[in-house]
């Protein structure tokens, strides 16, 4: 696939204005990752230790669960994805981010609002809408800020240099269009003029699927479409596959809204359409997978941290796509729905596909913008290793535990206390996996803080000279 020359208009990105908002959004989001995982770990512990901190209303399981999902989705994934998406638009367009100062301020507002919101969830309780647990007034601010950021993204895209557009741009653009639509719709129909009855659940489900499949997934795919050929040093296999994959993804993903409401009190046609769309997602998954896999030579994996994360992400993408298609049909959902099994699919999607794709971008972009390599070469190895081990345990325990839970629940003769008792061991195993995973993420925080200290302090040792092994993405440009 033809791509415009990767040289940017800015000769020294570390000093140009594009860098600061990108570093702020991506680096700051890592704090949300750790905060969200901390809350998730406590929630996971409370699943099998109900008496833990029981006298404190702020940390009931329901509140911790909602707060952790909010911190992770709106704090980590969205901000990291947005920062990276804006950077990729500027980079592929041979230009700079429009109004970087406003992007930076919008990021500040986003973080302030989200901090208040997560505190609000712990103090006053979640809204009960699983896709948007934040208190209503704060959601308004967040909607305005995210819409503004998306508009600035369009402005950046509009001033790109001439030439054919590339898949990375298509995917970022899709995400930037989808977010305002989902944010404004859910804000209006759930908060300002709340719909009655189960319409709330329908819109909540549609919004939740949209945030995952049309906001986070396109940003992750944009990163993969850029960095796999870029670092691997080889072009994508087929431009036609990229086009088909992109349009099929956007089309089918936008019709999966009610796939988690199988058997629920909603019109049946909605669920049927969503199931069909979830299964048909296999088509874009196949096209995108064929395009991304085996592009980069295996030898390049050894040289680049970013490429290793991209590889993990691409593998998880294919696996989660197949898993979704296999478990979406009604007969499977009747057993697996409302159990821990969807938790496994969601974790594989978020922490196996989206997270590593964004980290691939992070490990490639930050050294470029900071003007120096990450100080420690071992920490990224630990990060990747613990991510794989922790995620493996998490997905295995939720997946197998949920499978067994589903079959036990489907059998009306097995008493509920027995079902809950048998699930205990899997919930404990899940806590272990989550602890390993969370510990692994401290590695990227440590490396980032270390880099920041080196950049800010004049006596920080020049890491570039000591660690000559640089990724081609950085060394080559």
């Amino acid at each position: 696939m033809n791509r415009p020359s990767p040289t940017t208009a800015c000769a020294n990105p570390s000093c140009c204005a594009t860098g600061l908002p990108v570093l702020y959004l991506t680096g700051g989001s890592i704090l949300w990752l750790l905060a969200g995982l901390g809350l998730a770990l406590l929630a996971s512990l409370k699943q099998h230790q109900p008496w833990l901190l029981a006298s404190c209303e702020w940390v009931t399981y329901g509140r911790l669960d909602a707060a952790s999902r909010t911190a992770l989705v709106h704090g980590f994934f969205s901000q990291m994805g947005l920062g990276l998406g804006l950077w990729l638009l500027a980079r592929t367009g041979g230009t700079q981010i429009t109004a970087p100062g406003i992007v930076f301020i919008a990021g500040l507002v986003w973080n302030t609002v989200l901090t208040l919101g997560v505190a609000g969830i712990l103090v006053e309780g979640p809204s009960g809408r699983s896709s948007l647990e934040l208190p209503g007034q704060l959601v308004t601010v967040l909607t305005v800020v995210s819409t503004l950021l998306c508009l600035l993204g369009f402005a950046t895209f509009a001033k790109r240099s001439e030439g054919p557009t590339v898949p990375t741009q298509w995917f970022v653009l899709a995400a930037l269009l989808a977010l305002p639509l989902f944010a404004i719709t859910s804000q209006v129909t759930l908060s300002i003029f709340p719909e009655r009855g189960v319409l709330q659940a329908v819109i909540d489900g549609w919004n939740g699927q949209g945030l995952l499949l049309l906001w986070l997934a396109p940003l992750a795919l944009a990163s993969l479409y850029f960095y796999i050929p870029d670092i691997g040093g080889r072009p994508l296999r087929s431009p036609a596959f990229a086009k088909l994959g992109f349009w099929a993804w956007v089309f089918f993903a936008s019709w999966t809204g009610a796939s988690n409401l199988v058997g629920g009190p909603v019109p049946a046609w909605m669920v049927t359409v969503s199931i069909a769309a979830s299964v048909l997602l296999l088509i874009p998954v196949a096209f995108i997978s064929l395009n991304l896999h085996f592009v980069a030579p295996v030898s390049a994996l050894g040289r680049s941290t970013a490429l290793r994360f991209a590889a993990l992400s691409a593998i998880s993408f294919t696996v989660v796509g197949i898993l979704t298609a296999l478990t979406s049909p009604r007969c499977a959902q009747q057993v697996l729905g409302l159990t821990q099994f969807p938790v496994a699919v969601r974790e594989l999607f978020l922490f196996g596909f989206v997270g590593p794709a964004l980290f691939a971008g992070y490990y490639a972009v930050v050294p470029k913008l900071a003007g120096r390599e990450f100080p420690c070469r071992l920490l990224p190895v630990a990060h990747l290793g613990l991510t794989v081990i922790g995620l493996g345990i998490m997905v295995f325990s939720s997946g197998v535990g949920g499978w067994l839970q589903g079959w036990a629940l489907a059998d009306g003769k097995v008493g509920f206390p027995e079902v809950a008792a048998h699930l205990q061991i899997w919930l404990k195993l899940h806590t272990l996996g989550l602890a390993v995973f969370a510990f692994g993420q401290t590695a990227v925080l440590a490396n980032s803080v270390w880099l920041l200290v080196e950049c800010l302090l004049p006596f920080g040792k020049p890491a570039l000279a000591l660690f000559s092994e640089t990724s081609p993405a950085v060394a080559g440009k």
Partner: protein
Amino acid sequence: MNHGPVLFLGLVTTLVASWTGFVALPHRQLGALQPDISTNAAGAIVAYPAARSGEAAQGAEVYRSLGCVACHTQQVRPENGGGDIARGWGKRRTVARDHLFDPTVLLGSSRLGPDLANYGERLGTNAFPLVRLYHPSSAATHSTCAPVPFLFEQRPIRSSGSSPEALVLKGTAAPPVGSEVVPTLRARQLAAYLRSLGTSVELPEALLPQVEDANAPK
């Protein structure tokens, strides 16, 4: 695909189609849903569902704010779609009309705890056992339900005698000698809400199983 406008228009069309399918059409189909009016056995006209009132309505807020929905669903799936009805979680499937007047619809997506769509009916004529909230595992062995002791007050027994509201607690759950545990207003509201949960009313779109099936002569 080399032109921004084509890309832009294609994306907008796709997204608007999705919006039409999952926001506009459902609104058109369900937005005007009304309660079902019928005549009961005594000849009185009744409407189902009716909005909750008083303590039960306030209890719905307590239920939402504690995040109970993280573990408890309120949806009974159809007979041919899982073991919900066989398990005794409801007599019929839950339909859209059942949730018509819930201020926040909490269908739930995880069953770490049992379904509560008909919890009030399962209690029958018994009072709601408040011990289930204060010390779940002493009310039901092996319960993994998170206790909410902050909805209760532990206080010294007054000279006039212990309160009629005091919980009867045994073993590890019992307070020290000379003190008692009484529910706060929020605990009573939550109990009233849980007591109000029930959907065993026949609707045109969701018939109850025929009663004579159970009493049919063998």
